[in-house]
Every structure is written in C-alpha cells, then in structure tokens.
C-alpha cells in the first residue's frame, strides 16, 4: 500500500477523530511503545505540517518542493569536448546509428516545461528544457535498421547507466536535452546532453548522456544494481528495490 493510500485510509476509517489528531495518534501509538505496523503511519510527536505551499496534486508522496537545483552524482563531472561528443543508438546485433553534436542540434527542437522529482526527496516545478524528442531518435534508428527491443539502457560518460522500459521513453514522454532555462546545460547538471524522463525519478534522466542501448531483458543500471528501483515511478514511490 502506498503512503498516500495509508493516509486516506486513516481519514476514511476514523472520520470522527480526524479533527482531533491527538486521539488518533494516542489510540494507534501509545507513547513509549515501539510499534512497527506496515498499514498505519507512526505519528511523530510534536511534528506539524508546515509547508503546504505545493499543491498535493503536483507533489508525489515523500517529496518536498525546492526552488534550488541540487546536484547529485557518484563521481567527478566528466569533461568531454563537443568535437568528440556523439550520441548513439545501439542494437543487439551491432547495428547502430550515430549523431554528432551538430547533427543533434539540427533536429527539430521541443521545449518541455516539466516537474522533476529526485529520489533524494526534492521536487522542482516548471523546469524549462530544450532538446530533441527520444521518439524521433528511436524512429530514425529503427528506420536505419536498429531493431527495437522492449528495454533500453541509457549510457553516459563516466560509466553511468540506467535501465528503462522502452515504453517510458516513447509517446512524447522523454527527451535528450541540451538547454536548461534558455542556457546551455551546465556540466554539473549533465551537460552537454542529458536524458529527460520527468515522469520517473530523476536518476533515470541520465547526465552526460552518450547513447541508448537496446536490451532484450531489463538488466539493472548503475543505481539499480545498488538497490534502487528498476522503474522508479515517483507517484507509486518506487524508490528502492522491493517498493511496490
């Protein structure tokens, strides 16, 4: 059961106590008693909601809104010159399609404005990006003979990888982006090019992207091998392996 649903259960089952939260918490969790009940939240004594600035419909469970743009990565920021940079879509059979930096820039641009959600709990609303639709790249690769597969591994400079079902990258839901807020994407935020898959936790939006590799099976990427969820849907709070 998701946390969101748990909260709704508490509201529905105990409507009379809802106006008097003390009764609710006292009944469920007598002070000084250790309880681990998967279906009921533990009320933190003396904790009150403070930040109701973000509309609940935009904030997935367990997230808070930030106006900053925090940076997270596992190692040094790679330094790749644009002359060396390329983008590849690789098939199982060794067939691949390659774009240079100028090839990518020459493709039709889209300008998504989206909310992003990091597994470290921050969400940022209305981020403005410019890039190229992944649909367009995958279609071009298929037309060039790169056979489609059900799963895709995004791969990056520095060795980072992340796995996605093909369906999460198609249908207008994903882009490769090179501008953020009308400026070239800064290296610490994944420049020159990062993946943008805003409906999944942001680690799926691989920084320093160099390509997409077709996979028959859903092999885990970098964080996924280290215990993070294979899909990472923030609305289902799929943070770690074993989450629903």
């Amino acid at each position, binding site marked *: 059961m998701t*946390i969101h649903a748990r*909260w709704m259960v*508490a*509201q529905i089952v105990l409507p009379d106590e*809802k106006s008097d*939260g*003390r009764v*609710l*918490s006292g009944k469920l*969790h007598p*002070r*000084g008693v*250790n*309880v*681990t009940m*998967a279906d009921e*939240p*533990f*009320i*933190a*004594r*003396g*904790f*009150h*909601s*403070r*930040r*109701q600035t973000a509309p609940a419909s935009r904030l997935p*469970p*367990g*997230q*808070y809104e930030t106006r*900053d743009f*925090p*940076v*997270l*990565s*596992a*190692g*040094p*920021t*790679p330094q790749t010159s644009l002359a060396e940079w390329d983008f590849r879509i690789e098939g199982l059979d060794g067939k691949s399609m390659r774009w240079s930096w100028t090839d990518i820039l020459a493709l039709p641009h889209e300008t998504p404005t989206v909310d992003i959600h990091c597994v*470290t*709990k*921050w969400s940022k609303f209305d981020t403005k990006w410019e890039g190229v639709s992944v649909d367009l790249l995958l279609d071009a690769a298929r037309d060039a003979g790169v056979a489609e597969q059900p799963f895709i591994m995004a791969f990056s400079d*520095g*060795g980072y990888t992340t796995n996605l079902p093909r369906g999460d990258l198609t249908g207008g839901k994903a882009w490769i982006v090179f501008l953020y807020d009308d400026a070239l994407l800064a290296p*610490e935020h994944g420049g020159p090019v990062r993946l943008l898959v805003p409906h999944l936790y942001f680690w799926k939006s691989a920084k320093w992207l160099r390509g997409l590799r077709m996979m028959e099976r859903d092999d885990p990427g*970098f*964080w996924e*091998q*280290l*215990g993070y969820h294979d899909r990472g849907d923030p609305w289902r709070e799929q*943070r*770690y*392996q*074993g*989450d629903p």
Partner: protein
Amino acid sequence: MKWTVASVVEVRDETLRAKTLVLDVPDWPGHRAGQHVDVRLVAEDGYQAQRSYSIASPPESRQLELTVERIDDGEVSPYLCDVLHVGDGLEVRGPIGGYFVWDVRDAGPVLLVAGGSGIVPLMAMMRHRARADANLRALSEMSLLYSTRTLGDLFYLKEIERLVEEQHVRAAFTLTREKGDDRRGYHRRIDKAMLTDVGWPPSHMPRSYVCGPTPLVESVARTLVELGHDPSRVLTERFGPTG
C-alpha cells in the same frame, strides 16, 4: 524496504547547530560505512516529510547514530534537533546507497575529503577502520582532509584527534573563515597543493571519498582528476542543504 520505528536512546550535541541521535532500531539488518537512512515524519493530519541522513556509526556498532545539522528554515532538521528527545520514536528505513561505501577489506590507501556536515559518512569509515582487526587494518591507510568555516563547526573533533593519536588516521583541517598560522592547519579553501600534501600520490591508486556541499565536491573531484587520479576511484556524495 520497510519503515521501522526506532527509539531515540541518546541525543548528543556535536556543535551549536548539530546533534547526534543515537537510535535503537529493531531488527536493523546492518549497514556498510558510508550508507544512509531515510527518515519519515508523519504529522497528525497525515502530512509527511522525508529526508535522507548519513549514518555516522560504524557497521560494528549495535546502535545507529545519525548526526543532523539544523537548517533553520528547514522542516525536518529543526524537528530532529529541537523537538525530538530521548524516548521518542522515529521512523527510519535503510540502509540505502551501495556505492559511496568503504570496507576495511578494501585494501589500499584511502583519502577522505569532507566539507561541513559531509564528514558524517566519512566518520563511519574512520570508526569502522579503527574498530577493525589489526591484521585487516594493515591492508589500508587512511587520510582525512576536513574543511569547515570555523573551529566551532567541526564535528567529532576530540574523537578525530584521538584516532590520530592512536594512528588510525592522519587528519588535516582547514578553516575557511578563520585567519591563523598555517602550520597549525590550513585557512583556505581546499586546493591542489593541499590535496597533494594530505592525499596520496596517484601512483598509489588510492580511493578518494569526497562528501560535502556541491561547490566543494565539484572542485575537489575535478582537482583530484587533474592531479592524475583515476576518475573511477573518486567517489562523491553531495550534501545540499536538506531542511
């Protein structure tokens, strides 16, 4: 991964702005040095807030220790520092994170670079090494470079000094907002010369763990690569302000 209600068994002041929470976690599965936990606070109206905190205690410790720095306009850290007290319950789940970790069996020299509260996961690594069997400990060498604004911002100072005396770690401090004689520690931002003095030569193939605010982590990681360190052996973890 299941949420568990831990009990707060001790609260210690680390600095004027930071406290260590000592937790009894029922059925804690154990952790590796460098990992973190998620903490969840649920209010009576169902509102919830979650944050991640690094584990300060070593894997050998039965109790879990988190050191939390108070962010004044935050919502979770002021609760953990000012409201929570011994006897309270606290929801946690973990351990989380399997990359920024060090084990005493990982042979070779180790450089730890901390900025501010970024010392917490590195402290778990130092404590882990100090508690290890002497034969295992002999596989590694450990050096710490710790940057804070002022002397009063240093976490665990007495304990680190004791670890240095007992030769479990070499340590150097830099206080970026204090003036003074550099012979007793540095008084500037971490730079190439400092990393060369305190760190290991790239030819020794050290593993470097860098944890702190983003500008420090970006700068230190880039400098280590410029000095010739293998980027895949530079591991970073960033502490943005998490309220």
